[in-house]
């Protein structure tokens, strides 16, 4: 007696290839991950330029330089970063059920999505860093204008700027994805438990710092880090958030 074998009539694709295909799937509509961030970047930059021109045209010469320097507190250079939170939510809320519809495993989706986040964050960070460096050169030439050179970017080198932008994007993407994954898995109950847990952990940390009087030491310790080191450290909570997202999605039923 022989049993019909299941010799595949379909050529099998290996795991790494499937992960790369998930990355391609994320990028098949480039508007979501790359188009909109750069539209936001362009619009925000345009607004900053108009504001700078208004300052130049209306503020008396004595105060003009100070007003232009004031633009370095605008955070406008980071405006596209907050859109990454929307991307993180959408990835889990709609790309995940779509990917499962293409017979992609959860593991392949998570690995492909992590890869997509790294690639997208690297591309965006590279573009924004180039613009920061150009803006630094403009300021060095004597024209004061701060859009990308706001915050710590004015005095940092290009590598630090890149690492900052890269880490911040990864952190925002991972946190938004993790919170959405908890919602997809456990719905409102999951949200309530998550935020209570976050509040309790924050309270516990603050309590320990206050009760043990280690606040000063803690700040001194943090201050001992370089800017680049601080931003590299953001990748740790990002990895933890991604792990939380994976745990939630691993057994998340696909509801309709």
């Amino acid at each position: 007696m022989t049993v019909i074998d299941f010799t595949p009539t379909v050529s099998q694709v290996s795991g790494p290839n499937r992960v790369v295909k998930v990355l391609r799937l994320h990028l098949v509509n480039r508007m979501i991950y790359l188009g909109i961030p750069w539209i936001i970047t362009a619009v925000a930059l345009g607004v900053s330029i108009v504001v700078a021109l208004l300052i130049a045209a209306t503020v008396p010469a004595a105060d003009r330089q100070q007003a232009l320097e004031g633009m370095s507190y605008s955070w406008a250079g980071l405006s596209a970063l907050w859109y990454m939170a929307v991307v993180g939510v959408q990835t889990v809320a709609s790309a995940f059920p779509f990917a499962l519809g293409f017979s992609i495993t959860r593991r392949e989706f998570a690995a492909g999505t992590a890869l997509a986040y790294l690639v997208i964050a690297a591309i965006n960070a590279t573009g924004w860093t180039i613009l920061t460096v150009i803006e630094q050169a403009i300021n060095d030439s004597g024209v004061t204008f701060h859009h990308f050179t706001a915050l710590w970017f004015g005095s940092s080198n290009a590598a630090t700027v890149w690492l900052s932008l890269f880490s911040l994007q990864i952190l925002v993407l991972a946190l938004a994805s993790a919170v959405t994954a908890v919602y997809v898995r456990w719905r409102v109950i999951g949200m309530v438990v998550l935020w209570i847990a976050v509040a309790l952990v924050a309270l516990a940390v603050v309590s320990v710092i206050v009760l043990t009087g280690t606040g000063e030491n803690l700040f001194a310790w943090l201050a001992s880090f370089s800017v680049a080191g601080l931003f590299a450290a953001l990748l740790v909570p990002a990895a933890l958030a991604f792990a939380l997202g994976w745990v939630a999605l691993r057994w998340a039923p696909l509801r309709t």
Partner: protein
Amino acid sequence: MTIPTPVIHVDGVTRRYRDLRALDDVSFSVQRNTITGLLGRNGAGKSTLMRVLTGQEFPTAGTARVLGANPVENSGVLQRICFISESQRYPDSFQARHVLTSAPWFYANWDTDLADRLVDDFRLPLKREIRKLSRGQQSALGVIVGLASQAPITFFDEPYLGLDAVARQLFYDTLLADFAQRPRTIVLSTHLIDEVSDLLEHVLVLEQGRLMLDQDAESLRGSASAIAGRAAEVDRFAEGRRVLHRDTLGGLATATIAGALTAADHRAAAAAGLEIAPVSVQQLIVDLSRNAAQNPPEVSFAEERGA
């Protein structure tokens, strides 16, 4: 000797959501290269069963095996499955062309020519956001992916909601022609039972999460008869038989009776002035469902026939 091995084997699968049993101890097999109809009323558990079989949902108890293995997180199995869900979600701002561009990356047997032809036949707009497409156009997109995927096992869950009659006929014709050329296993859930009954080789009927019927379609056709005439004669004829449904209008009655009738039955009916008409698969399933709702199915129709 070669024995047919099921490509899908479900054994005692139960899926509970708090106090709801979406699937209740469901067991059946699907043979390779057949077209199976998964039928049942709204909320009967059809979609849940398909999601279990495609690893999107997890059984509370029991086992589901596809191509001999648990489909959950099993890339080797899932690569050979295409699941077209009526409630498929797409990322915001996705257009049909994005779906059709990326589908070949995941379905190794993807037939681009067939997909292109179907896009034309269904008049599917490729460059409009999917969420702005009509219900029928969204269904057409699913049908195109399901047919062009050429996956060894394809699940269609209510694939033609909103499709007009012409588009539905196009789907049936394409499915049959393609199936004849390239046989594969198709599981199709639908409400339009009469429309697809000629397509089906096997029928599974779910009722409130339980498997009510598991039977080959050929034996199902003509396996029940509608007897009409004066109520007293109908009741006399039906005595000792399994009556699936009975309607009365004044002194007249119609009864759906399970089981094939013999020549002697036909003669007896004619002598009593009764008319006998075949019962369509759809009517049979409607009657079985109503019967099951009134009397919980302690014995399935299939088991009774097999006894």
